[in-house]
């Protein structure tokens, strides 16, 4: 009898996701679909609002990385205010960078320590009652404390630059509304251990080493789990360096060949298309030059370390070289290596934050520029989870007329579907019973991409999980809930 397995909702993923695995009469997987129930309506909702409200408004999309939306929107509004990326004052650009790298730091720390480490420390088959951050806190106190404090450090950086830890107002069209006072700066540089910039860098290095050690002991799992080739896309600094805040678009294929390079993101529509499928609300973006079938790509830490040529800070660069050597310089296609890449980025973000804090430009007073108004603008940043596109058009009265947002979860839609399919093919196939560990492997696959499904707040603890086996006629043959 053909069966359909439904896993809903996926735990420790922001928002709600539902996985259906269709089995035929022989128990063979016929189809896997990862449905993202995401309809936030922001693109419609902001129509009519004045453009300068948008950076503050759209960040409400997300409670984990509001800064990314805030900055992508602000960059688009810079274009509308007639201020190009090169025209921002040094204080404005560096304050924004500090805000952004602070958020990458806290978001990556949150993701690794709170969301991913329980799976690594306890294994996929562990009892869900301990396989969570509370379990980590009980058994590996040091690790949990580091996670909490690294997140706190990043949050404080955001507060000092954006005005608030969550949903601040720092970036405004054409610049920033505050600088960093010497007192604020010293609170990060000279604070007693551990909440100062140097310790944070050391702890980030510890996290990278922790993962490398785990990798050594679990090579087959980390290398084999949901590994599949893809294209990769990200922003890249002009000289090929990793850059989360600004750059041009670059995409490489599975062999590392550049299929898109030095592309101005104001023209993103020329390079990226969005496909629609009947069973999902979420679109499927693709590189136009490769077509709908082959043009899908990954974004996020894995993709970024596949597209960039180097990392412009010494400790992260050293780790990057070790990481690249592992795949002999070729693009890395192993889903669980995303965690490794994420931790190298965490280290890089820590180094950049420390260096920026020592930069006197942050105490500058020239904050905002104004230029000749334009009626359309695109803003991109590399959000923690991947490339984030914001595109707006305004009318003659400064009101938003059109908005198009492509978030990293959308870019990663196809890769996440493939990852879940990989699990279904390799782990679920042929089993007669659905175990906790099997279900969790589906979640681990999704979690590697760290999707931000719709900004829910259920990062901690266990969410209800219901599994249904449905036959071809829709009849329920088995149901499991926890």
């Amino acid at each position, binding site marked *: 009898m053909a069966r359909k397995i439904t896993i809903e909702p996926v735990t420790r993923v922001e928002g709600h996701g539902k996985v259906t695995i269709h089995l035929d009469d022989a128990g063979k997987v016929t189809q896997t679909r990862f449905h993202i129930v995401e309809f936030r309506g922001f693109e419609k909702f902001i129509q009519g609002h004045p453009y*300068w409200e948008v950076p503050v408004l759209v960040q409400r999309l997300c409670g984990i990385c509001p800064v990314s939306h805030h900055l992508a929107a602000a960059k688009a509004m810079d274009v509308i205010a007639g201020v190009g990326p090169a025209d921002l004052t040094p204080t404005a650009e560096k304050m924004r960078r500090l805000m952004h790298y602070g958020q990458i730091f806290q978001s990556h720390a949150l993701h690794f320590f709170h969301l991913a480490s329980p799976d690594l420390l306890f294994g996929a088959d562990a009892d869900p009652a301990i396989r969570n951050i509370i379990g980590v806190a009980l058994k590996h106190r040091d690790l949990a404390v580091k996670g909490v404090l690294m997140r706190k450090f990043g949050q404080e950086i955001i507060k000092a630059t954006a005005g608030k830890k969550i949903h601040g107002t720092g970036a405004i069209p054409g610049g920033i*509304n505050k600088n960093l006072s010497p007192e604020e700066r010293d609170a990060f540089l000279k604070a007693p251990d551990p909440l100062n910039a140097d310790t944070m860098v050391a702890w980030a290095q510890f996290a990278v080493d922790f993962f490398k050690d785990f990798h050594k002991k679990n090579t087959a799992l980390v290398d084999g789990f949901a590994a599949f080739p893809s294209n990769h896309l990200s922003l890249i600094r002009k000289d090929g360096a990793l850059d989360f805040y600004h750059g041009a678009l670059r995409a490489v294929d599975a062999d590392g060949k550049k299929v898109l390079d030095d592309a101005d993101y104001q023209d993103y529509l020329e390079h990226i298309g969005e496909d629609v499928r009947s069973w999902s609300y979420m679109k499927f973006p693709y590189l136009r030059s490769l077509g709908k079938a082959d043009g899908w790509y990954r974004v996020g830490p894995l993709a970024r370390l596949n597209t960039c040529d180097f990392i412009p800070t010494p400790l992260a660069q050293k780790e990057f070289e070790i990481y690249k050597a592992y795949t002999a310089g070729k693009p890395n296609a192993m889903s669980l290596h995303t965690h490794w890449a994420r931790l190298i980025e965490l280290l890089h973000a820590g180094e950049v934050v420390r260096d920026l804090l020592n930069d006197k430009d942050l105490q500058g007073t020239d904050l905002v520029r104004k230029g000749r108004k334009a009626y359309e603008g695109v803003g991109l940043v590399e959000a923690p989870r991947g490339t984030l596109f914001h595109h707006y058009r305004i009318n003659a009265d400064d*009101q938003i007329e059109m908005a198009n947002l492509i978030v990293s979860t959308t870019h990663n839609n196809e890769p996440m579907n493939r990852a879940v399919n990989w699990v279904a093919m390799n782990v679920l196939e042929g089993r007669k019973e659905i175990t906790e560990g099997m279900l969790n492997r589906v979640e681990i696959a999704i979690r590697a991409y760290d999707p931000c499904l719709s900004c829910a707040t259920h990062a901690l603890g266990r969410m209800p999980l219901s599994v249904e086996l449905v036959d071809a006629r829709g009849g329920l043959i088995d149901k499991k809930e926890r």
Partner: protein
Amino acid sequence: MSKIKFSVDGRECFGKPGQTILEAARDNGVYIPSLCRYEGLKPTGSCRICTVRVGGRYMAACTQPLSEGITVENTAPDLEDMRRAMIEMLFVGGNHMCPTCEKSGNCELQALAYRYQMLVPRFPYQFPLRTIDPTGPKLLVDHNRCIKCHRCVAMVKTKDGKSVFGPLYRSKRKKIGADLTLAAGLTDDQAKKAMDHCPVGAILKKEIGFAVPIGRRTYDKAPIGSDVETPRT
């Protein structure tokens, strides 16, 4: 000049002839909240936030003249709750999204909601369908946030004294309209003042957006009314 003796919540106060209860109370360091009232304008008593109880009767402190020997109740729990209810009604009757409003921190309605510790409104949200209207080259009027206090009608005038804003329709349909020709003639300074006079974020001067960080605005620094209040001795 003769003094008028009165009391507010048992505190002995003195006022001058011709003053309203609100003005006299203020001179004695007692804060009675108001929304539609604006210094220098004839009070209209339309918002009723200033309602006090005098001899068991409810009256608008902003319009009621002071008289000798009256006993004013201002902070009785039931009065405060009534004010909170009025603030809640203003919130549910419009579409107020403080987190993304440029006026946040400078908004008198928001400040009063904090002062009176409004949590979840007891009334159902109305979610009225309202528009954001361009009003001349310098202003936008967001009707979602308008509380129809009429301050703009009285205050935003052209050089020759013509009102730029005026009420349209009645009751639930009522909205503040603008003469677009007159609005087109407003100077930058007049437009900025129009925004400042509005107690909420309904009148927006174009291109002023979050230049002052949240946390550094008027009511971020001190709660509304604290400039008036003197502690009881």
